[in-house]
């Protein structure tokens, strides 16, 4: 009820639901939302710490008039496996089934402080190979592992 009071349904766009409470900012960083902000008809609402039947409390993000690309959707679901993503077209939701990406490029910092990707001023991005069987990413530069569950700690800030 509280959720419905806070925000109405959207006609077209993307709803990112079941985000762990207070993690919506991390999700927006993963989505590189700075790029979206320049779109004239785009609007967004981020709900924090609303009641959830499954998880007690959760965050919800509604991206109005924005169709989240599937690569970004896959990345969000990799970092937060409980997240659900619905694409809305003419008020009708369609649940997205995430795929596990082979590579994660940018967005995540390498956990190894001595990795060349953490060197100040070097013009280099990060690139991780996904090892689904081991529930981890592996840095393509230094081979360090990052467990899926620790990924939120390493989301790149602005």
């Amino acid at each position, binding site marked *: 009820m509280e959720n419905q009071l806070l925000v109405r349904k959207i006609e077209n766009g993307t709803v990112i639901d079941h985000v762990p409470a207070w993690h919506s900012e991390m999700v927006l960083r993963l989505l590189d939302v700075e790029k979206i902000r320049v779109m004239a008809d785009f609007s967004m609402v981020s709900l924090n710490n609303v009641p959830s039947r499954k998880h007690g409390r959760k965050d919800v993000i509604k991206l109005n008039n924005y169709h989240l690309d599937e690569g970004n959707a896959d990345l969000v679901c990799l970092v937060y496996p409980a997240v659900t993503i619905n694409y809305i077209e003419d008020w009708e939701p369609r649940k997205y089934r995430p795929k596990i990406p082979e590579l994660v490029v940018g967005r995540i910092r390498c956990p*190894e402080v*001595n*990795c*060349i*990707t953490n*060197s100040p*001023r*070097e*013009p*280099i991005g990060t690139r991780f190979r996904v*090892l689904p069987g*081991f529930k981890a990413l*592996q*840095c*393509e*530069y*230094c*081979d*360090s*592992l990052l467990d899926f569950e620790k990924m939120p700690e390493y989301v790149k800030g602005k």
Partner: protein
Amino acid sequence: MAGQGFLNRDILSTKDFSRAELDLIFNTAKDVEENPGRYRNTLTDKRVALLFLEPSTRTYGSFEASAVNLGCKILSNRNPAVTSITKGETLHDTIKMIESYDTDCIILRDRRMGSSRFAAEVTDLPVINGGSGSREHPTQAMLDLYTILKERGEIDRVSMGFVGDLRYGRTCSSLSYALAGFDDVEISFIAPPILQVRREVEIYLEQRGVSYTKSTELRGAIPGLDVLYVTRIQKERFPDPTDYERIKGSYVVDNSVLALGEEGLGVMHPLPRVDELSPEVDSTGHAWYFSQAANGVPVRTALLSLVLGG
């Protein structure tokens, strides 16, 4: 006599090399030893940059000797204190500068992990990893394998023990990756828990079905080994110095330890050693480490010849 697929190739990790490619390196190194005249001054038109931003004796020296044998011109930069790196220059810019000096190949040692892979992305020149942080030292692993091949006759079916600092020692990971390409290899990782082999190395071996064990006890792991690879345990790795004092003696290799093994057990060490390998082993048949160090020149001569097309 450039080998197929080697010309202008980067040498960044042993993971990038198939068994057939490693065999080509070993066959070329053998030829370098048997027919040195065939290689002398074959690359007089080539310029090799030695960019060593961390201390090195053997790797630098053997690359330099190899380049001299081949007749290459050497552009040497082995003291980071006198480079613009200390002024905050990026590795990217340093590599771009060296590239502009009409160089044919860059050999890089840097304390940062993954630095060679990045350097190889920055330049079209072939980059040879001369040691990057605590992760990889591929040319050391190649000369280690060449040593095993010479001393033992084959690398397949080797029972290999690694003892010491397996977590931060870059030779252990590079050699483990390389061994995974050979048949029926067994590996024992012997170290205190804080210095045990890293999980990514274990994953690599698991993905390739390589049999390995981990233990903390040196003496119990010796019987059945063909080769014992010793590395130094560094005091500064231990958060509590008393932990180091307590365990350091447990990982010293001397004749009493080697007496528990087979007669033909070979001992290897990337050197320098401190206290972990007793000098009393030097005069025994177990000591492979000095010939191991000497193998640096033929193996690195072979690599330069293959990469630069000698």
